[in-house]
């Protein structure tokens, strides 16, 4: 049940309610637990609530690490 999905915020109301794009589907979500979230940010959504903001810089670093590992072992 701790399955949680990364999604991009597509609508954000002052009440904290809104919608997010999860792999092409629009889902309703409550963003009250991530007050710093803004339209277009990526969040982790669990049980209808965004619980965490994704850090773009950290995400890029992880991707870069894997790109390098993939490339380094290429023959």
């Amino acid at each position, binding site marked *: 049940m701790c399955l949680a999905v*990364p999604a991009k915020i597509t609508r954000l109301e002052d009440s904290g309610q809104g919608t997010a794009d999860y792999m092409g589907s629009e889902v309703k979500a409550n963003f009250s637990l*991530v007050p710093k979230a803004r339209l277009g940010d990526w969040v982790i959504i669990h*049980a209808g609530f965004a619980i*965490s903001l994704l*850090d773009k810089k*950290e995400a890029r*670093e992880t991707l870069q690490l894997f790109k390098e590992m*993939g490339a380094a*072992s290429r023959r």
Partner: protein
Amino acid sequence: MKELRDPKAIRRLLGDIGEKARLLPRPPRIMEVCGTHTMALFRHGLTPLLAEAGVEMVSGPGCPVCITPAAIHEAAITLVSEKEALTLATFGDMTRVPTRKGSLQTAVPAPGSRIKIVYSPEEALEEARREPSRQVVFFGAGFETTIPAIAFTAKRAAAEGLGNFSVLPALWLVPPALRAILEAGEIAVSGFIYPGHVSAIIGAEPYEFVARDHGLPGAIAGFEPGDILLAVRSVLEQAASGTPRVALEYSRAMRAGGNPVARALMEEVFEPFDAAWRGLGTIPASGLRFRERFAGFDATPKFGLARLGAAGRDLPGCRCGDVLRGVIRPEGCRHFGKKCVPDSPLGPCMVSYEGACLIHFKYGQTRRPSP
């Protein structure tokens, strides 16, 4: 994120892991605490690949459907069978858990009552607003990932004065369960993969006792194959250097301090108590109940249900509890795959998508694709 599944990078990491594992005095055995990690490890075929690299993975207690004891599942069944004009709103997999009273799926609701499958506790709240003459009970089962959502919903219900909304709580805290497993000493583990989304709420600090008091390494991991292998590698590095800590290998989605807004909300609405887990027994300060101010939202006294803290009895022969402690693998239960299968489960470990028995049943035969 496809890079985190790149076969070349994965093979390279597995190679690294194999080299590090060979240098350790004992073959490492690492517990993945979270059921979603168990699922990812099996779905991507990583558990057998790690075994070949010399690392044994064991599943931990991180399945809320599973660790919720029989008494609470039975209370939910009693509630919807006996109380009229009531909606029991629940996450889907809770409905299939078998008990001595059947399951929510086989229960016959009392006149006017029904079971509603929801994805978010807010859906239950909406129903309570829409139908003021109906009692709406949310079967709130979950770990720290889910608890803030339930706290938010209860607080909102209080603000709106919705007296027809309540929660049947089955709220569990991960760190006290790890402490109980370590202190019981039934199995020797050499490190932990900590749950990424529980940690997104609680941060890293609550696991530090594992390194400090038990000298064991650990890493918080995300859920892609690459995330999990990075965490395994970190655990082996810490073991080799003798510097156990709580490594953050999921920093794109969590902060070391967790989510303070969510934690404050949990604190405001709930307080810890000594809760009874399936298989793990009663663990000090391991469950949450409503604080005095919100006590009216607790469905347990409101509907005269069995007191919180009682475990109840499992179906005869079910060893879900032993699986949750990591004492046996699912294959070690004589009913696994025979009397107990997903279509007719003997216990919740064969029901939940995060249950070790279901996952082993579905993916246990997975072979490596030929090169």
